[in-house]
């Protein structure tokens, strides 16, 4: 824990265990060591057993029961059960390749567009099975929005970027209403002041941080119930990151937010609960404080103390 707070504030790099080691080529050595650790962890995996902590929550809204995901033969998510309530921020953490993104993308069926991906188990939103035949993924994604790792504004004007969702879903009856939605969304995303006078300029001309806030504005313009964020700050500098984190704080009053992050500080700052994934398994879920001060599982402890990269 002590190491965590002192480590650099860049979000991209998880705390590295090899920083102080004496070596000519630190990065390579660190990589090799991490690889060894992972291999070691893989052996331990056999007796991970049940998820530690509490996968259930009060007033669950998104419920995943025994979810398995396969990419061809690759078993990427193994029997994960997790409940998410309507007004919380839950952070998914874990080493690279453990299936955080995969699990996140199950929640709005973005895996549908990957040919090899197969999802089994039940995921429900407000009691409805989102993988049932009657549930249209288009309607689902209007209710479960997504912000991606790399800011990906459309190559259209700032206005059109935000207006796109409301337009395709027919949320506004006339231009004035649409203007209002765009205005409010940009305001909530904390971007309005910066772009007020350049609404017709391309969204791709903004800075990285502004682009990411534009993407958030675009997502909340549809007024979803849940917002999924896959490492939303990993391409941003600390100041832009701080702004987005503040934003998440505000948004959590109205939306359930599921955020994947590699930064433990970020998880600690923004989330109420933390779920730790390891090699496709959900190892431990608990309140953020508890995870970071008193992890129950050995793997969780290893990860947050920087022993698994």
């Amino acid at each position: 824990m002590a190491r965590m707070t002192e480590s650099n504030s860049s979000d991209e790099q998880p705390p590295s265990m090899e920083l102080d080691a004496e070596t000519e080529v630190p990065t390579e050595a660190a990589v090799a060591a991490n690889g060894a650790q992972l291999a070691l962890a893989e052996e331990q995996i056999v007796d991970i057993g049940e998820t530690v902590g509490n996968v259930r929550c009060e007033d669950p809204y998104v419920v995943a029961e025994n979810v398995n995901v396969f990419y061809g033969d690759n078993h990427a998510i193994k029997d994960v059960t997790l409940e998410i309530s309507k007004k919380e921020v839950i952070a998914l953490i874990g080493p690279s390749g453990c299936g955080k993104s995969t699990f996140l993308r199950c929640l709005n069926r973005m895996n549908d567009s990957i040919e090899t991906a197969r999802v089994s188990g039940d995921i429900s939103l407000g009691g409805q099975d989102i993988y049932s035949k009657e549930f249209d993924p288009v309607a689902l994604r209007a209710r479960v929005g997504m912000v991606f790792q790399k800011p990906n504004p459309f190559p259209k004007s700032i206005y059109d970027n935000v207006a796109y969702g409301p337009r395709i879903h027919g949320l506004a009856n006339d231009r004035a209403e649409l203007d209002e939605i765009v205005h409010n969304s940009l305001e909530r995303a904390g971007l309005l002041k910066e772009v007020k006078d350049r609404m017709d300029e391309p969204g791709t001309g903004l800075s990285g941080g502004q682009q990411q806030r534009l993407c958030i504005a675009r997502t909340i313009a549809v007024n979803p119930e849940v917002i999924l964020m896959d490492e939303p700050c990993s391409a941003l500098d600390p100041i832009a990151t701080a702004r987005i984190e503040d934003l998440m704080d505000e948004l959590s009053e109205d939306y359930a937010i599921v955020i994947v992050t590699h930064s433990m500080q970020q998880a600690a700052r923004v989330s109420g609960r933390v779920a730790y994934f390891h090699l496709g398994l959900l190892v431990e879920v608990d309140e953020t404080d508890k995870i970071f001060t008193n992890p129950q599982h050995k793997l969780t402890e290893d990860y947050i103390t920087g022993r698994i990269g």
Partner: protein
Amino acid sequence: MNESRNTLQKVEAGLPGRRRRETMFKLAGLLATTVGIVFLGVFFADLIAKGSSAFVQTQVRLDVEFDAQVIAPGGEMDIAYADFDGLVRASLRGVFPDVSGRNERRELYRLVSVGAGYQLRDMIVADPNLLGTTQAIWVPAASTVDMYVKGNIDASLDESLRPLSDAQIAWVDALRAAGNLQTQFNSALFSNGDSRDPELAGIRGALMGSFYMLIVTVMLAFPIGVAAAIYLEEFAPRNRWSDLIEVNINNLAAVPSIVFGLLGLAVFINWVALPRSAPLVGGLVLSLLTLPVIIIASRAAIKAVPPSIREAALGLGASQMQVVFHHVLPLALPGMLTGTIIGMSRALGESAPLLMIGMVAFIVDVPGGFSDPATALPVQIYLWADSPERAFAERTSAAIIVLLGFLLVMNLAAVIIRKRMERKW
């Protein structure tokens, strides 16, 4: 520490070799480019040297009397039977009154193109008031005279070895000295269809034929190609069938074009019974020919659209169709258009398949529609290149210049479209 110094030494030891190889590679590239440019330069120089003279044509000024006796013997104009050639001859005799004797006069008459009579007829039809007047008009000289004026006939050769006799050369020189014979812009080249007489032959018919064909090709190949590309790239399930289709489309792009001509002959002419030699059939065949090119280019353009854009739209709840039409297509369109224009330029330069569907016929009339008999520009070049007259040689080169000009414009358009639409974002 020691090791790192070692690394440095090894790297430095290898550096001269690396630099040498890099220099060699650059030189080789430069050489290849230079050779290519030199060949291109020689080709263009040769073409322009041979073809530029076809853009002018020798004309003779004659004082022609629109003799009412000849044109309207009974008071009524009788265009069909009037002897306009006789009028031309009469005025030639007026210029050289000393020429007598059947053979001499016949030689004199041969200085002027047979087109002169038609020109008089067209004039009187356009303006009947000319009847009875005498007009100074420029009429085309015969192609042999034209060749002599352009320096392609050596007057010092023995008379029997050249197409112009001594007497004819003397007359031409006399006309030229009097200012009644000069070279002027060859408007016939652009306003006439094909002809047996080089001085009357033009590329208008072939140009129109090519134009109608390209219209058919664009109208069919672009929408079908783009639709197929979108379907294959965005909607088709990936399985053995789609793999098979993909392989076949790629193969189709490499099929010799004459095979498409055979296909067109068998299917469109023999089976569907569409008219032979028609731009419609030519366009159909060229559509088949360009479809694979357009599909491949369009698929590449679609593939080049960043997946993050697709994900963003999907994540907002856009349907697959909306993703394609709102985001993918606008971004892929420049690439698709470029592919289409390149396919079109290929179609414009294609002659082999057209030979198979009868577009190689000698057609004088300029086609006025999609089912009129027509040739195409490359076929016209082929036909002229095959003609024995010296004057057709320069017209062949001129037609090639025109064809290359069109290809240049099309490729330029492709570049401009790409630049314009890409710069937007």
